[in-house]
């Protein structure tokens, strides 16, 4: 009877030991870590086990001695996301959750500025959008201010501060009055990214021509063609001269050369002469000998 009792107690002790291994405490691990930082997981019980860290961002495995602390060096787990820590022993499996959040310090900006070239003087003509990433290319979803600056060659600066939402920020800028190459900079916590935006003259403004007799013909010549901000319209821009007389119409397209366009046409008494560039109309002259 005594021997039987000892055997029963012994069996009970062994069974309890297994239960203790399986349920004697739980893994102790941080609920949240910053991407790339070191951390440790305290395992319960005794014996050997395998520790898996799995998620869509990474998959890790460590062979562990239960009861020991498992160290993960800096840089081991660096992709932000939700992970499961799975401890698997001979007779038990325990699972805990672990969130890896992006590092708080920005390291990379994805900055897209559009367009790369546009006419001067357009309201909200330039757009910029940034996504902010940490050193491990995790999108930093915590709000942070982004500084957008558009500088023209004359030193005029437009500045906007926009706070990110879910790692993204956007802005709009006016193209400036001065043609040339502008610098468009996005800056976050000392990290900056620069894009170049070319600003070209706008449509001709105040297009004006003069007419002079040239023998039996008429010589038409424009004043220097400029946009509404005084920028010279580039050579090659087509200027259209039209002569209307007695129900007939004659049209000549002439590119700008050295800032002006000129043409010599047949003279018809009473003809109406006009000048245009695209949809921009210039002055009219009635030709009377």
């Amino acid at each position, binding site marked *: 009877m005594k021997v039987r009792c000892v055997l029963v107690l012994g069996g009970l002790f062994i069974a309890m030991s297994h239960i203790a291994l399986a349920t004697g405490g739980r893994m102790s691990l941080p609920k*949240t870590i910053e991407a790339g930082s070191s951390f440790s997981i305290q395992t319960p019980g005794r014996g050997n086990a395998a520790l*898996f860290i*799995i*998620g*869509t*961002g*990474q*998959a*890790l*495995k460590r062979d562990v001695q239960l009861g020991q602390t498992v160290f993960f060096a800096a840089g081991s787990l660096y*992709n*932000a*996301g*939700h992970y*499961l820590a*799975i401890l*698997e022993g001979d007779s038990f*499996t325990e*699972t805990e*959750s672990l*969130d*890896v*959040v*992006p590092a708080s310090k920005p390291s990379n900006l994805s900055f*897209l500025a*559009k367009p790369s070239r546009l006419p001067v003087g357009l309201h909200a003509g330039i*757009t*910029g*959008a940034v*996504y902010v990433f940490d050193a491990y*290319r*995790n*999108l930093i*979803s915590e709000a942070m201010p982004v500084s957008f600056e558009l500088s023209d060659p004359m030193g005029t600066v437009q500045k906007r501060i926009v706070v990110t*939402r*879910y*790692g*993204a920020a*956007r802005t*709009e800028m006016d193209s400036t009055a001065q043609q040339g190459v502008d610098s468009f900079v996005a800056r976050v916590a000392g990290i900056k990214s620069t894009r170049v935006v070319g600003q070209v003259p706008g449509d001709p403004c105040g297009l004006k021509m003069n007419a002079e007799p040239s023998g039996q013909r008429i010589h038409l010549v424009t004043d220097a063609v400029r946009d509404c901000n005084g920028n010279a319209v580039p050579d090659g821009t087509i200027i259209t001269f039209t002569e209307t007389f007695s129900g007939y119409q004659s049209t000549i397209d002439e590119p700008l050369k050295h800032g002006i366009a000129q043409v010599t046409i047949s003279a018809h008494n009473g003809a109406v002469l006009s000048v245009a560039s695209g949809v921009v109309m210039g002055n009219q002259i009635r030709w009377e000998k």
Partner: protein
Amino acid sequence: MLRPFLILCAALTGASASMPAQATVRVEGDNLQGSRPLQEQTGRAAMHDYLQSWQALTAALEQNRADLLDPDFVGSARDTLAATIQQQTELGISTHYHDRAHDLQLVFYSPEGLSIELTDNVEYDVQLLDHGRVKTAQHVSARYVIVLTPAEVRWRVRVFQGTKR
């Protein structure tokens, strides 16, 4: 603005029903503060393509085949998932993800129209398989931030990142 998204919600639920995963989909009203207006058709297409990407993700992580990601993932999202698949292969494990429910919200549409960002409060089951044997199965609630960019004929996932709920 709510009505289009209710329609969108219904459309996506219908699209989801045809998928093997049978995930339920809920779309919250847009939260595109100050962003470029998003056409209903564009939003619907982006969300549809994102939901489809879960099928590619599931197949790729289960079969440990990074090539299955190519139609749906690009850039860092593709690189990260491919690296995970490589790690799983080296460890002799695979994972099976089964998305059960998505709660989507559009949060950013870039002004030039070249990226859409959304959040997804997703419910999924995940199984860890070691040499084909299921070691554990868990139900997970997680929040993802997704950035989609347009490709030739569809939106592809460029950022796919879990965040704290």
